[in-house]
């Protein structure tokens, strides 16, 4: 069995994991729960040899085993599926899955048919229908996630650490993953699992360990807990309804989109957004939601159709045009289109609205520091200092920082693409109340969310996309999840 003994990890003087001891038994599914920044990913990464502990050690099969690298851990039988996906985009699916363990012939040449076969078997295990010869870069986020899981399965590991494996997956893919986890468990494989989705934990886990602020709150059998109890352990307080109350929107049209088209992603998209209103774009993965909102932000302009904003037609070539008009966006792809990893938290926050802290072309460092301090406090972003590189923050804190960046320029329309993906309940609640606050102050929010309860509770109206077209526009007060799904499913 795998044991963490008094493991401790520091980053730049901040202890992110206080001495923690947990035991992972053979053949159990062990869920690590906690808010973002609670230390779950850190604990996993120490177990997987990615981080060296600053105190304590890892015990594996009864002997002390402090892995010097992920490779050492892999050889010992411990594999990890990372929350941040790490594919090699220009290799094929099969090459990615067998990476580092390629089936080889007599002259060390790669045995291509065997490689392909191996990939097919592993993908079949996950009930995924992905062609092994496709290039990784042509895959959707969900497919990439499935490939990463297949890769870890292929290592024949005795322990698989899964950090948020379902964050990007659709319902069917999640179900397939769960069946696969059940088979692994039957073979005696230990699964360590983190997620922010409550229903998953109670479906899967045998035992649950809760972390809070880098400390272990406790470990108990899943049967002794329920969602309310678990949330209470995670946040240290009881959360009342986390969705704030909606106020009715105004009649003033802020955004009017007509016949927006960019084949093959989407066509003839038309909808309106009023001041004070939150509209959610719902739909399945690949329905064109991200593409539509990217067009309204100028990231990938539409080929035809019209966008009217504040009553005037808007021509968008790039995000600068959108920002100048008063449209801001927090993108779905935090790592690729959001963070500047080497810059500090503060400089990331002020990047878009830097002009406001400038005299002429020069930065007024004092004004900038004041703005950063107030935003960090307002959004309760946890960091050692505003100059800490943003790459070192937890996912939830990064997301809050990006929201702060977007709002600092005071846009009238805020586009949020999956703003709560992979972040904890506490951070979610803060983002929800920020969204309602924006609507109340006469702004408008265009929300893309794959979590239907979230979309239904936050938005006034739901625009359902199906294969790139508007399938329905629903009143969120009367719609339910089934209705939305019925419109979203391909006929």
């Amino acid at each position, binding site marked *: 069995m795998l044991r963490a003994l008094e493991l401790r990890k520091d*980053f*730049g003087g901040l202890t992110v994991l206080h001495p923690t001891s947990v035991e992972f038994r053979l053949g159990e599914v062990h869920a690590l729960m906690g808010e973002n920044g609670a230390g779950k990913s850190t604990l996993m990464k120490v177990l997987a040899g990615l981080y060296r502990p600053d105190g304590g050690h890892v015990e594996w099969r009864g002997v002390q085993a402090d892995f010097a690298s992920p490779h050492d851990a892999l050889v010992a039988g411990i594999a990890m599926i990372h929350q941040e996906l790490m594919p090699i985009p220009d290799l094929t699916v099969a090459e990615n899955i067998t990476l580092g363990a390629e089936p080889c012939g007599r002259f060390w040449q790669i045995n291509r048919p065997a490689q392909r076969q191996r990939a097919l078997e592993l993908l079949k295990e996950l009930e995924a229908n992905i062609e092994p010869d496709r290039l990784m870069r042509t895959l959707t986020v969900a497919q990439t996630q499935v490939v990463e899981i297949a890769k870890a399965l292929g290592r024949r590991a005795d322990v698989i650490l899964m950090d948020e494996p379902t964050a990007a997956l659709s319902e069917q893919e999640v179900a397939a993953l769960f069946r696969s986890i059940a088979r692994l468990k039957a073979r005696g494989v230990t699964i360590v699992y983190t997620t922010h989705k409550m229903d998953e934990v109670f479906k899967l886990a045998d035992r649950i360990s809760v972390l809070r602020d880098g400390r272990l709150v406790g470990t108990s059998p899943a049967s002794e807990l329920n969602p309310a109890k678990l949330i209470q352990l995670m946040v240290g307080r009881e959360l009342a309804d986390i969705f704030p109350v909606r106020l009715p929107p105004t009649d003033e049209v802020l955004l009017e989109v007509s016949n927006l088209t960019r084949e093959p992603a989407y066509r003839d998209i038309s909808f309106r957004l009023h001041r004070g209103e939150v509209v959610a774009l719902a739909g399945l993965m690949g329905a064109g939601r991200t593409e539509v909102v990217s067009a309204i*932000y100028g*990231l990938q302009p539409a080929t035809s159709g019209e966008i009217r904003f504040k009553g005037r037609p808007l021509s968008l070539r*790039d*995000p*600068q045009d959108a*920002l100048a008009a008063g449209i801001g*966006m927090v*993108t779905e792809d935090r790592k*690729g*289109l*959001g*963070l*500047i*990893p*080497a*810059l*500090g938290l503060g*400089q990331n926050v002020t*990047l*878009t609205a*830097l*002009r406001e802290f*400038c005299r002429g*072309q*020069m*930065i007024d*460092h004092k004004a900038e520091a004041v703005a950063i301090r107030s935003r960090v406090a307002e959004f309760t972003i946890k960091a*050692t*200092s505003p*100059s*800490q*590189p943003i790459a070192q923050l937890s996912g939830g804190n990064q997301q809050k920082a990006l929201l702060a*960046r977007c709002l600092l*320029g005071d846009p009238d329309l805020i586009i949020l693409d999956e703003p709560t993906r992979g972040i904890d309940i506490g951070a979610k609640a803060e983002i929800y109340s920020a969204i309602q606050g924006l609507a109340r102050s006469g702004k408008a929010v265009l929300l893309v969310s794959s979590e239907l309860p979230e979309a239904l509770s936050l938005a006034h109206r739901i625009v359902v996309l199906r294969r790139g077209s508007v399938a329905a526009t629903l009143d969120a007060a009367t719609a339910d999840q089934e209705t939305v799904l019925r419109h979203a499913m391909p006929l």
Partner: protein
Amino acid sequence: MPALDRHLLHRFGLLLVILAVGLGLSFVTDTFLSVANLTNVARQVSINGILAVGVTFVLLTAGVDLSLGSVVALSGVACATFAHPGDHTVFIPIAVGLLTGAACGLVNGVLVTRGGVAPFIVTLGMMTIARGLALIFSGGRPVANMSSELTSLAGDFLGVPIPVLCFASVATGAWFFLRNFRLGRHIYAVGGNENAARAAGVPVERVKLFAYGLCGLLTGLAGVVLAARITTGQPNAGQAYELDAIAAVVIGGTSLAGGVGTITGTLLGVLLIGEINNGLDLQGVSSYYQAVIKGVIIVGAVWLDRRQARS
């Protein structure tokens, strides 16, 4: 560890190395620690220093400029052509040299941003194009007969060599700019994550164009200073200057992947390379061996640095 601490440690470590090498040299030679020699070192590093500051901007945007040496030669030839005694006031040849460099840099920048060609390829092309143009304009011969006003640029002002003053003001200006200007912050953002910078509303194309243009302008300045020093426009001057400049920047802690680096680091890198060159000269090491030793030191310094950064 926060980036700030790491940079301080890095600079501190590099400073220690520079002092240690200096201390060693002052023991094994009588001449190293003399005002005359140190002035000489400062004079010798100025051209590489000006180039290194320029190319720091390009490297920060995750680009590269391999055309520095050739553009130095072309700017020098262009400057010398307009610098014959009695032809023009001294400002004309200076301006011609600077603008020649800036034009080459802007062409690089346009091809990188609008053309979407990799910086390595664009500037590799410019490296041979500028060299060829220098040879064409000069007919393959050094352009001599320069006015004394221009060659006096290699002299002293209040006891300090003018090239050193040029380097010092360029470095100070660049340091101030990167710290305090919006465009300076944008350069770090573009190098750190170009797509995210674009999504955040940073005018990525303009930022890159500026970096290449400024690098070209400073390369032009280096060309003018060199022409003044050797009193001719040499079409074959500046061979492999880009390598010393890029080496100094990288030793100074700037990442070739972009987004990380400082002018202070570049300054220290330039000083270390200059000190080593001078030490090897004083010791009478043959230039063949000098090349080998310098290469080993450059790779060694960066290797040590990266090892330290990983731990």
